[in-house]
């Protein structure tokens, strides 16, 4: 059940250090996933590297990263060498600054990860850093090298763990004044605002992950199932009788249908 960590390293506050691991909050495992096929043979299509000069296919282990020094002039860099790039932020999240938790606008949040202690030896130190941030209502700001970039990161206590967000670079976020500068900021008619507030109140619900269900995935599975029945040979239809041998697709569809029905019932209340 445990996910393979995306990154392993250390969390550091002054002289306190503990081993930690990080996994992405996003997951592809429940998504309807497609493979690329050859339309003619229906076999899967695989990606291969070929040498640009000789045109010969190369083995995966012979593919290596090259840093371009000049035209047609490269320096080969092995993965191990890159790991040793002289930046402490490749291995250590050293929390250097703390900021009030509501001081970082949502607009800066890029990608969320879950950070947790990696070994029992670090659990207490991890908890100290987490609980101190929580009780002061602060988030930590640090740096971390992720996928060949050094990112500003924000650490926020959440339950028993810490959510780590990569933050966008300053030059990545466009100046809002170019878009909102022209919006007339005279106050709206207070009476109408009151009416809008009433409408909003009536339609306000508690946050629930069901609010972000995806009807398209449901439809896609239906289309797949219909196509599958079309292409099945008659002899095989018995085997896919859902009562005897429920296939994975049918299970997923049932589960998805049930959650959609549940949502509909909620909506009617």
């Amino acid at each position, binding site marked *: 059940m445990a996910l393979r960590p995306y990154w392993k390293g250390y969390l550091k506050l002054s002289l306190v250090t503990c081993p930690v691991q990080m996994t992405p909050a996003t997951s592809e495992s429940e998504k309807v996933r497609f493979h690329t096929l050859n339309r003619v043979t229906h076999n899967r299509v695989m990606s291969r590297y070929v040498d640009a000069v000789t045109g010969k296919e190369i083995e995966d282990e012979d593919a290596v*990263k090259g840093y371009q020094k000049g035209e047609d002039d490269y320096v080969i860099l092995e993965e191990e060498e890159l790991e040793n790039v002289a930046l402490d932020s490749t291995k250590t999240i050293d929390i250097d600054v703390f900021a009030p938790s509501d001081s970082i606008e949502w607009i800066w949040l890029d990608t969320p990860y879950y950070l947790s202690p990696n070994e029992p*030896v670090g659990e207490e130190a991890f908890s100290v850093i987490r609980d*101190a941030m929580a009780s002061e209502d602060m988030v930590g700001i640090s740096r971390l090298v992720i996928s*060949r970039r050094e990112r500003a990161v924000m650490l926020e206590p959440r339950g028993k*763990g810490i959510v780590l967000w990569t933050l966008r670079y300053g030059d990545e976020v466009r100046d809002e004044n170019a878009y909102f500068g022209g*919006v007339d900021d005279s106050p709206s008619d207070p009476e109408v*605002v009151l009416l809008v507030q009433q409408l909003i109140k009536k339609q306000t619900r508690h946050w629930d992950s069901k609010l972000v269900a995806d009807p398209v995935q449901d439809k896609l599975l239906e289309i797949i199932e219909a196509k599958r029945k079309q292409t099945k040979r008659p002899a095989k239809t018995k085997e896919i009788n859902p009562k005897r041998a429920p296939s994975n*697709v049918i299970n997923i569809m049932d589960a998805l249908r049930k959650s959609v029905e549940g949502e509909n019932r909620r909506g009617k209340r």
Partner: protein
Amino acid sequence: MVVARANWKGFIKFGGVAVAVKLYTVASSSERIAFHTLNRVTGNRVRRVFVDSETGDTVEPEEQVKGYEVENGDFVVLEPEDVASAIPESDKTLKVEAFVPCNEIDDVYFDKPYYLAPDKMGADGFKLLRDGMRKGRVAALARTVLFRRLRTVLIRPHNNGLIGTTLNFDYEIRSSEEAFDQLPDLKIEGEMLELAKHIINTKKGSFDPKAFDDRYESAVAELVKAKIEGRALPKERAPSPSKPGDLLQALRESAALVSARKPKRSSQKTDDGASSRKAQRISRSKRTA
């Protein structure tokens, strides 16, 4: 002022009101350091080709098609029009389906933010929605077809305008409860907590995105230089974790260290001002419950 072209134009619909809006990308992603892939044996650049896994023949892009695996090695083929047929017709309308209190929103669902500006300046409906949501401390959830995908968009007031953030779907996110389920339930109290709070307060500052610099590229350039000159590459030492028995000592020493230095970033007194923040904490912990 030069304004970029809108990425999308449409309407926000709430109650019986339709507001014409333009949508603009907030964030462009900046370049990362580009490495090339080489053939280690010849030193030549490589290129990627797609081959049939059985026959080994090259498969051109127009011969590639999507397949969904139903049983081992058995695929249902889906043409682009099959996939498109699952997506509802675009009506260019962000229809508000619900409002949710801002402090309940689970931000790990956030995907990409967009600026939403009124299509005609002074659009009253735009301001009403913005001001109504701000007063009620809520954000709106709307659905629409955006760039040929059905998306859920969280719309919230932001200064004079609105920001629409696309959200990931429920099955694309692992909940934090699930992720942290196995962690021990350790609550830190007493001297350890007080020391750590003290250290945090001496490091109080703010995040300045404009001041942040990506040092990775120059570090790689340094690495390359060292390699060319045949110098030994500097090895980054792994820090040694604090042992549980030494944790209190490490905290005491850290606290002494930061107290010896003048707080750099803030002249604020570092007493714990927890009481004023308690109310907020209570509402925050409700969110995760």
